[in-house]
């Protein structure tokens, strides 16, 4: 308050947390290239450009894949207030669907999985291929599978209170993990799947594929982003906002609300399926061990809450910030922090993610990027309501 008068014109109306948000974004953006360089020094004492770049591209690809999943969650939670605590299920289904469609026949005695149409689609054996249509089809199939699964979960639960769906999504995540591990004939159990073909691998030299990888994931992120922005501003999106703005109307047209929530849940899940598909392409190997609650559900909640619920740019920013901080903390492990902290670093990171979610809820419910307010009808309204409702005066 005292400072407000001394601030330059552009800074008026900014809160201290806005400066913190900017500082965080800047720090990450500056630190990542430095870390990339440091990482490459492991192999080359003076650092080397190829090592630096492969670290850097891997970082960007991960952010892109995570941004897709966070945008999917944003459609569900940010716009409609539908809780999904089982992102893992849709993520995993998308990734495995893509893998079994594009991979070739199972090789060796210890590998069994269904599908494997890669040879028929001419994706295999030429691992480096310039075919693109089958990859798009596999991604579409991933989206479709995830969407169908969402429909299945939504049917018995979405007409009930919001938290029933949340419980059901935890369940479907557990079932998905179990099926992948127990049914070895299906997707090779806990051994996982490797060698998912790389899209457009024939276009560039294998050592340069990492750049193409960034471009492909980047294009998908951009397509999904603009598609979602369009959808949110379309009549469909307006129905959403209209419904969530007027509680009377919501109650009066209960059926419409159910249909809308289902649609948003299914669309969000389909985007998660696309994210899973991109994950399979980008990292080319899948293992049930990689799909933990922390890495396949919880981290996306942290990204969305921190970035800003109900805001697609926020979802992308959240993915960038959280993964950036994650990467920085991984690098810090290389410094002398002492054994006590170092051996516990992975768990401390988990702790901080949990604290971040609760902290955002308590301190800054709109997340880092609150400017896109127009779009975040649902959360915006919630927060406004919370602020405008006078607290019961003499509560003890």
């Amino acid at each position: 308050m005292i400072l407000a008068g001394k601030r330059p014109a552009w800074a008026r109306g900014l809160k201290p947390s806005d400066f913190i948000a900017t500082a965080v974004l800047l720090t990450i953006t500056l630190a990542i290239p430095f870390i990339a360089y440091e990482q490459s020094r492991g192999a080359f004492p003076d650092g080397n450009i190829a090592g630096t770049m492969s670290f850097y591209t891997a970082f960007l690809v991960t952010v892109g894949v995570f941004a897709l999943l966070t945008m999917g969650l944003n459609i569900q939670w940010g716009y409609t207030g539908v809780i999904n605590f089982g992102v893992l299920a849709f993520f995993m289904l998308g990734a495995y669907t893509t893998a079994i469609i594009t991979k070739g026949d199972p090789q060796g005695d210890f590998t069994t999985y269904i599908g494997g149409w890669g040879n028929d689609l001419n994706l295999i054996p030429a691992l480096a291929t310039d075919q693109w249509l089958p990859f798009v089809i596999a991604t579409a199939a991933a989206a479709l599978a995830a969407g169908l699964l969402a429909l299945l979960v939504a049917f018995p639960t979405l007409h009930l209170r919001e938290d029933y769906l949340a419980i059901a999504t935890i369940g479907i995540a557990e079932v998905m993990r179990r099926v992948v591990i127990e049914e070895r004939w299906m997707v090779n159990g806990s051994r996982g799947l490797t060698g998912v073909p790389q899209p457009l691998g024939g276009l560039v030299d294998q050592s340069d594929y990492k750049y193409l990888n960034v471009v492909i994931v980047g294009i998908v992120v951009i397509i999904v982003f603009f598609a979602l922005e369009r959808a949110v501003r379309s009549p469909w999106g307006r129905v959403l906002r209209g419904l969530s703005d007027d509680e009377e109307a919501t109650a009066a047209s209960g059926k419409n609300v159910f249909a809308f929530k289902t649609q948003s849940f299914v669309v969000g899940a389909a985007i998660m399926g696309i994210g899973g598909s991109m994950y399979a392409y980008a990292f080319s190997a899948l293992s049930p061990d990689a799909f933990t609650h922390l890495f396949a559900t919880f981290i996306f909640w942290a990204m969305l809450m921190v970035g800003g619920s109900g805001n697609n740019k926020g979802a992308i920013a959240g993915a960038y910030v959280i993964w950036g901080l994650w990467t920085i903390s991984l690098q810090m492990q290389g410094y002398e922090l002492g054994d006590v902290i170092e051996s516990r670093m992975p768990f401390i990171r988990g702790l901080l993610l949990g604290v971040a979610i609760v902290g955002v809820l308590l301190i800054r419910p709109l997340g880092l990027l609150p400017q896109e307010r127009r779009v975040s009808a649902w959360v915006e309204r919630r927060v406004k309501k919370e602020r405008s409702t006078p607290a019961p005066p003499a509560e003890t």
Partner: protein
Amino acid sequence: MTKTQAAPLLEVKDVVAGYASEVDILHGVSITVHGGEMVAIIGPNGAGKSTLLRAIFGLLAARRGQIKLKGQDVTNHAPNELVLRGLSYVPQVDNVFPSLSILENLEMGAFIREEGLAERLEYVLSLFPDLAGRRGEKAGKLSGGQRQMLALGRALMLDPNVLLLDEPSASLSPKMVDMIFDRIKMINAEGTGILLVEQNAREALSVCHRGYVLAMGENRLEGEAKSLLDNEEVGKLYMGT
């Protein structure tokens, strides 16, 4: 009665209130209840009758105006404080704890009070012998009329000075309406001031001393119950005659 009229039990002055982020429903309503009095608020649907009771009971913030209980300012005080000061409220619906027994419902009415519980319970059960016979049964199993009795009984457990009743006759059979109003009269005869909101204007005015007519969130008419009953405008507008 003449003596208590000097210091009104409940005084509502120019109260403006509405639900959060919505337009005001009450645009300055004033109401007075004197000691031993039974006052009816009538008016068409959406006049703000129930909203007024909620505002008096602190369930809804009054944006302007003043509410005084026994001469003391209690504007926007929390319900649990108002209960301590002798105000009780019976909502129109959901006014019992369905999975608690009748006895437990009454006990909850007296949650903040320890002494004199037994006598109070005896009084309430003598007022509603129907309940006395089924005291161990769950309130959810009661009929509409018995629920209303239990709701009244719960509100009486603290021996309130003023009782706020929201449509006590809503959706009851005619026989049951007579019975409920009869009991309200008995409660009033014991000295408890009563402010009731009613859709059923004729019935309400025939048992109350005075009445207020509310419309569009404002005072329209007020006066002795008898004179309101005979008033042509009231008859035309709210009693369908």
